[in-house]
């Protein structure tokens, strides 16, 4: 009585299967949302089709602070991300007497754009917070990522022929084909899979592996964060009102100190206070490592009160791993490779979960537990994309200016995915697959059209803006893929299912 299975490979395959099954559904959500996040600024642009104004980053931040000074002067902090070659609006997070809100600010007027939406931020947050309150979502994401790391390593060890799997695909052979597909997806992008899982864990390190900090700092968390970011100027509010000096000279001075590199983020602590602090951060779009360079200014006078550029090797190592995960440095082809890698990982997870069921179905009739797994697979693999597509349709259909519009979009996304999951649990998979794939295809086809979508398309084409047409084309591509899958599922039932059933009866 020793191992769970006889033989190293068998144990690895067993462990790979169970680690994959245990959290596979959450992993699928994380992978898909993460893949979407590669194009976070582009999704945000698609979701704000009227907000096409553009301005230089200095002018845009200037306009944003002017509007915020008039409309959120008592705020504890304004956190602004400047427009760049990918985003045209200022992304702002601020509080105006209550909770923090996230808004896209028009780069010319500085006011929030009419179509209030989280845009691509929804997918980004979902990727590691899973719509759960802090810190539970991040903890769950960490546990899933650790499980994923084990699933990847065991999957690799379970393998006999890494190289041959590059070229092996035997279609229309049931379990064999699913296994070949799963292997190819896993093996072809294996370095990406390992990198993205490991670096993902590192991005949440202070939450999921705080023990190094405990060992060297004890309870003094503030000291640890100060050592990690020694440049941060943390000055308490004076309690007296104050006015911000013009911000444009500060931004230019910061860029001069960055050696001409552009800034990307600006934070203004206690903006209406006599002790306000303006901190300007260098953009990390031109480097792999997300290393910090920042300059802090005394808000009312505009005097420099702190400057810091990270050069320490250990922190630099951390910043490179972090930067590799965020992929903000990736331009052009590299960005599409990130997207492709993420898509392959998402499909590897999905095919793995389907394989779990297919493998067992070909051996014997499915147990009750595996029949539930099969239905959950339908509900998650088709239902989560349905939620995402519903989010995009809601963005087009909800009128601009609606109260709590951004939250309503998210609610619609979650409800649509939830309903899809319930439907998948209620009906047999042979109905559930084509039904949900059909709904997904319809939503993907509808999203570029409904709510005046076609006029946005023609406006974008007239402007020479490629983002919106490309997104529309991708949506149509997803719809066609879903329709093709739907056809395959219905045809397969006719071809394969019958002999299998005949065998079971015999």
């Amino acid at each position, binding site marked *: 009585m020793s*191992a769970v299975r006889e033989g190293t490979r068998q144990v690895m395959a067993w462990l790979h299967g169970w680690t994959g099954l245990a959290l596979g559904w959450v992993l699928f959500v994380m992978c898909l949302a993460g893949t979407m996040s590669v194009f976070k600024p582009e999704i945000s642009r698609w979701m704000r089709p009227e907000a096409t104004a553009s301005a230089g980053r200095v002018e845009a931040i200037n306009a944003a602070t002017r509007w915020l000074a008039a409309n959120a002067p008592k705020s504890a902090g304004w956190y602004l991300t400047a427009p760049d070659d990918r985003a045209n609006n200022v992304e702002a997070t601020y509080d105006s007497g209550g909770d923090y809100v996230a808004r896209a600010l028009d780069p010319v007027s500085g006011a929030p754009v009419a179509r209030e939406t989280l845009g691509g931020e929804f997918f980004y947050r979902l990727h590691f917070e899973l719509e759960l309150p802090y810190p539970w979502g991040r903890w769950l994401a960490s546990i899933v990522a650790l499980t994923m790391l084990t699933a990847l390593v065991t999957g690799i060890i379970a393998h006999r022929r890494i190289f041959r799997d590059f070229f092996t695909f035997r279609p229309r052979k049931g379990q064999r084909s699913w296994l070949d597909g799963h292997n190819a997806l896993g093996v072809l992008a294996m370095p990406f899979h390992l990198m993205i899982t490991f670096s993902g864990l590192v991005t949440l390190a202070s939450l999921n592996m705080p023990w190094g900090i405990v060992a060297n700092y004890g309870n003094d968390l503030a000291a640890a964060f100060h050592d990690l970011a020694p440049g941060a100027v943390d000055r308490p509010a004076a309690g007296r009102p104050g006015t911000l000096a013009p911000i444009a000279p500060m931004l230019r001075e910061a860029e001069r100190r960055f050696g001409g590199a552009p800034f990307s983020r600006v934070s203004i602590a206690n903006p209406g206070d006599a002790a306000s602090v303006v901190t300007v951060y260098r953009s990390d779009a031109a480097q792999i490592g997300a290393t910090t360079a920042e300059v802090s200014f005394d808000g009312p006078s505009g005097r420099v009160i702190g400057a810091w550029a990270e050069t320490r090797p250990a922190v630099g190592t951390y910043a490179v791993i972090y930067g590799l995960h965020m992929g903000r440095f990736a331009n052009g082809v590299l960005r599409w490779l990130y997207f492709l890698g993420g898509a392959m990982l998402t499909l590897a997870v999905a095919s793995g979960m389907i394989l779990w069921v297919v493998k067992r179905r070909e051996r014997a009739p499915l147990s009750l537990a595996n029949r539930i797994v099969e239905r959950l697979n339908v509900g998650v693999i088709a239902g989560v994309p349905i939620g995402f597509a519903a989010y995009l349709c809601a963005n087009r259909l909800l009128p601009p200016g609606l109260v709590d519009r951004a939250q309503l979009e998210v609610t619609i996304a979650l409800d649509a995915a939830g309903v899809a999951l319930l439907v998948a649990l209620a009906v047999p998979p042979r109905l559930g697959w084509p039904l949900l794939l059909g709904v997904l295809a319809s939503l993907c086809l509808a999203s570029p059209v409904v709510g005046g979508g076609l006029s946005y398309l023609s406006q974008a084409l007239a402007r020479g803006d490629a983002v919106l047409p490309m997104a529309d084309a991708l949506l149509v591509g997803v719809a066609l893929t879903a329709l093709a899958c739907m056809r395959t599922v219905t045809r397969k039932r006719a071809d394969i299912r019958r002999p299998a059933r005949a065998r079971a009866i015999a």
Partner: protein
Amino acid sequence: MGARAVDRRGWRYRGNVAARVLAGTIGAYTVASCLAMAVARLSAGGRIDGVIAGTLCAYLAVPAVAIWAFLARGTWRAWGGVVVLVALFGALAWMIGPPAR
């Protein structure tokens, strides 16, 4: 297949799997945590350098220990390995003590 050689029924098998699951999850994370502490304190650089080195190493311990937990001959050996590593890294971290400053 060799799978036939393992009797997969009964509480003995379930207990075996459960013990290994615990060793491969809570055990693996405990090993990783102790490794993070030991490397953090061992590191020659500044306090934060040690933290980063320790944290990065720690993640690698999780799949390694999880695999050990299921490959080891017998649950006692599986848990034995976990306990030895926790003791080793824990003792190392404890003996070095927190860094000055």
